[in-house]
């Protein structure tokens, strides 16, 4: 399954309701190859992956995630130390330089979907909103693949 998802550009409601100036930036962000793993029930955290590309000429900063699927979505970083021990921790804000892209992929950065509100069923999809520091947002429709999926095409 070849999926290329375009971020749906949404003029930010936040931006218009606060004093934060809207600058060019997040409009130039494109999200590709988004996918998620199905969950077993709602007790285990879900996970989603994607590539976030900044096609513009200024840096953008991804500040957070929102979705009605999970009460606590957050970007996490998995790291494996020299002893082979893996751990994960919140990644904080993620800056994407002009022309660069950041990959959320197994074993690295991931969208961690804590407190699932419903099971993630294979074959369905959910929408995930990416918030940027300029007040812009991108809504991505993320297809849910099997638990054993390894990438956007499997």
């Amino acid at each position, binding site marked *: 399954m070849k999926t290329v998802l375009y971020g749906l550009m949404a003029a930010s409601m*936040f931006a218009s309701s*606060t004093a*934060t100036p809207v600058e060019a930036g997040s409009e130039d962000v494109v999200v590709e190859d988004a996918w998620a*793993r199905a969950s*077993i029930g709602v*007790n*285990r*955290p*879900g*996970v989603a992956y994607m590539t976030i590309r900044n096609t513009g000429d200024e840096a953008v900063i991804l*500040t*957070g995630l929102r979705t009605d699927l999970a009460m*606590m979505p*957050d970007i*996490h970083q*998995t790291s*494996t130390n*020299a*002893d*082979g*021990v*893996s*751990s*994960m*921790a*919140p990644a*904080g804000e993620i800056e994407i330089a002009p022309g660069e892209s950041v990959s959320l992929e*197994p*074993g690295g950065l*991931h969208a*961690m*979907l*804590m*407190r699932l509100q419903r099971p993630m069923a294979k074959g369905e999809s959910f929408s995930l909103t990416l918030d940027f520091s300029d007040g812009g947002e991108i809504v991505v429709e993320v297809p849910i693949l*099997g*638990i*054993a*999926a*390894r990438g956007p095409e499997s």
Partner: protein
Amino acid sequence: MTRRSILKYAFAGIAAIVLTLVVGWWQVDGPGAPEQAGLRPVALSEMEFRLTDHEGNEVGPENLIGSPSMVFFGFTYCPDVCPTTLSDISGWLDDLGEEAEGMNVVFITVDPERDTVEAMAEYVGYFHPSIRGWTGPEEEIARAAQGFRARYGRVPTEGGDYTMNHTASVFLFDAKGRFSTMIDYHEPREFAVPKIRRALNRETGGQHEN
């Protein structure tokens, strides 16, 4: 509340979480943990632990002697590393096909509190049918990890839940139960499959024990 003050609170919250994670890491896996780094797993014949497989059978290291084995540690509430390792292993087994038939492939949980026999059964069912899931009392998991020189620790997360840090390498043993080698997390498939093949074909120097 203005957006700015919301952000301020969010930052304070993130800082608190990071601190908690760092403290947890220090205690369980960091310099505060017993030194085990760089050690190889002992032979399966030297290990001692009693666990239960995902079908409710009592199992121990002796079940892994007689055929080559592939063992790794993880937990089913692990969103990223563990399903990735399980699907990697499933892919390696598919690549090896008949060659890997009879190989013991075992996933030992480091989170027995949540990973009951039933939880393990449901979880391993999504991956290659050769993969077995073992769980048991915390002390027995600790004894198993000790033998494999695997490390793990519990770390609190946002919202009062917890996650587990754990050794993500896959351990390979020959049919005699002697440690062969390990496959590190992130190791490309073109290295992993030959390593498994080596454990499968390793000259055992005598007849199999089963």
